[in-house]
């Protein structure tokens, strides 16, 4: 069903204000098609009626999660956020590693919070491996992926992916770190797998969160959008505490921490930003 610009803006602002994710006008047709899918499921004919449903009480917040799942495609893949990866590679990694190298503390700790089936954590592992002959010679890498869902964690530990997951892997990395067993089965190299540990973690669990200490970088993409503002603030405060004093925190593409935390400094770089402790 055709979504007018005005209705698109209503939905965009509602999602931004409740979840902290911004859909640009260029994504209008995508949003329209996902919205139509949801409305057909619910047998709702008018956008106005759907918006009222979405905004109303408990059933609305369940529906909002469904809609967000559809809008974020609820699927992760390797090399998902190129501007972020480039920032890490070219600037932030050297910025963090150089002073540590000077004092001989050659260890990097990275956390992929809400790691799902591991694509982000493993992408980071590959980037670090590529620095092993230069910036990160003789360094120890400790990458942790956490998720609340044991099923996706099992998949992450297995390290076998389908064509969709690897569709943005550059050829160089593909040849070096994957074994293609069929057109839809790609097995990750053991040297990448061994850099990452996966564990079950509920980000709401304060008792566990306080033990996730001393990370240099924390990534948390498309997770906080499902939390209400109070929980978001609490979780982000944990991330802040869990970072090293010079650490960086990243959220997903088109996400925003505005109004959630004013402790971080926003550092802008081409195509994105990072939050610096």
């Amino acid at each position, binding site marked *: 069903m055709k979504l007018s610009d005005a209705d698109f803006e209503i939905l965009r602002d509602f999602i931004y204000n409740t979840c902290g994710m911004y859909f640009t006008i260029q994504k209008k047709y995508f949003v329209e098609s996902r919205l139509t899918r949801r409305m057909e499921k619910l047998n709702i004919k008018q956008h106005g009626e759907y918006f009222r449903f979405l905004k109303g009480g408990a059933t609305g917040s369940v529906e909002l999660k469904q809609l967000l799942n559809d809008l974020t495609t609820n699927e992760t893949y390797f090399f998902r956020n190129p501007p972020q990866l480039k920032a890490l590679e070219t*600037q932030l990694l050297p910025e963090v590693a150089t002073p540590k190298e000077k004092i001989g503390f050659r260890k990097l700790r990275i956390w992929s919070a809400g790691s799902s089936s591991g694509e982000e954590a493993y992408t980071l592992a590959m980037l670090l491996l590529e620095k092993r002959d230069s910036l990160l010679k003789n360094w120890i890498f400790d990458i942790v992926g956490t998720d609340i869902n044991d099923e996706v964690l099992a998949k992450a530990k297995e390290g076998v992916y389908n064509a969709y997951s690897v569709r943005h892997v550059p050829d160089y990395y593909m040849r070096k770190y994957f074994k293609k067993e069929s057109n839809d089965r790609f097995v990750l190299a053991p040297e990448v797998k061994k850099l990452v540990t996966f564990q079950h973690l509920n980000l709401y669990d304060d008792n566990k969160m306080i033990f996730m200490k001393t990370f240099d970088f924390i990534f948390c993409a498309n997770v906080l959008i499902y939390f209400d503002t109070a929980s978001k603030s609490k979780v982000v405060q944990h991330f802040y505490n869990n970072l090293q004093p010079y650490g960086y925190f990243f959220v997903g593409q*088109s996400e*925003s921490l505005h109004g959630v935390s004013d402790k971080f400094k926003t550092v*802008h770089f081409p*195509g994105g930003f990072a939050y*610096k402790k």
Partner: protein
Amino acid sequence: MENNSKMSKAQQMVKGIHELPTIPEIATRVLDMFDKPNVELEELAETILVDQVMASRVIKIVNSPFFKPMHEIKSLKRALIYLGFRQIRHIALTCSIIDAFEGKTGVFDVKTFWEHSFGVGVVSKIIAQRIRYPETEKAYIVGIIHDIGEVFLSYYMKDNFQQVVDEISGTNRSFIEVEDKLLGTTHCEVGYCLAKNWNFPPEYCDVIAHHHAPQNATCDPTLSAIVNLADLFCSVRQLDYGGREWISFNLAEEPSWKILKEFAPNFIDLDVERFCYELDERVPEVQDLVGSLFEGMIKK
């Protein structure tokens, strides 16, 4: 400007060029006209119509998403009524600068360069509106022309400037840093001399000279800060040029941010993330505008 050696070097450079691009006579006449009281719309339209290229550019600009008319405006007279006298002055100036440098691009990719320039214009206007700066059109135009010094260097100092571009390529270094090192001056001073040479209004010269250090601006630090901030945002939101590997900034540390906060204390509440995403939305608009203004000039 306090840095005399860079300034005298820039003056020498600009004076050394004998066939310096001229602002078309027509533009000067349009600009003059605004200083006279009681100029009739008819008279203004007739003056602009003498220059068909300028007339058609004015019509293109007025129909761009930036000015958003309800219906397409086809005649110059309607365009003048829609835009009003003050804006025409600015647009005439922009069109003349485009004309002056037509075909003179040198080292730069003309499309990327003007996309950045118009991007800075659009973002300057948005910032000006947010902080309730009284002259939003001025912010738009001065945003567009802030880097004219680069165009001069790129065309008239081709070889030296190529070295600058090569040295920057793939590094984190900025134009001003490398220009200063290799040329003994920067596009800020060169642009300033050029703008003086063309008798641009003093506040324009001021911004051109100080858009990288708005705290040093003499006429209007707020205007320089607006353009500086717009320039920073464009450089990280797909409207950059120059091949730098990396650029980053933290608003809280930028002098322009401080200046704008003083001008409009509520600016500190700006949702910067959303602001960036909204700028991303405007990028295709800017590219379309530049594409249509420079039709034929830009080789695809």
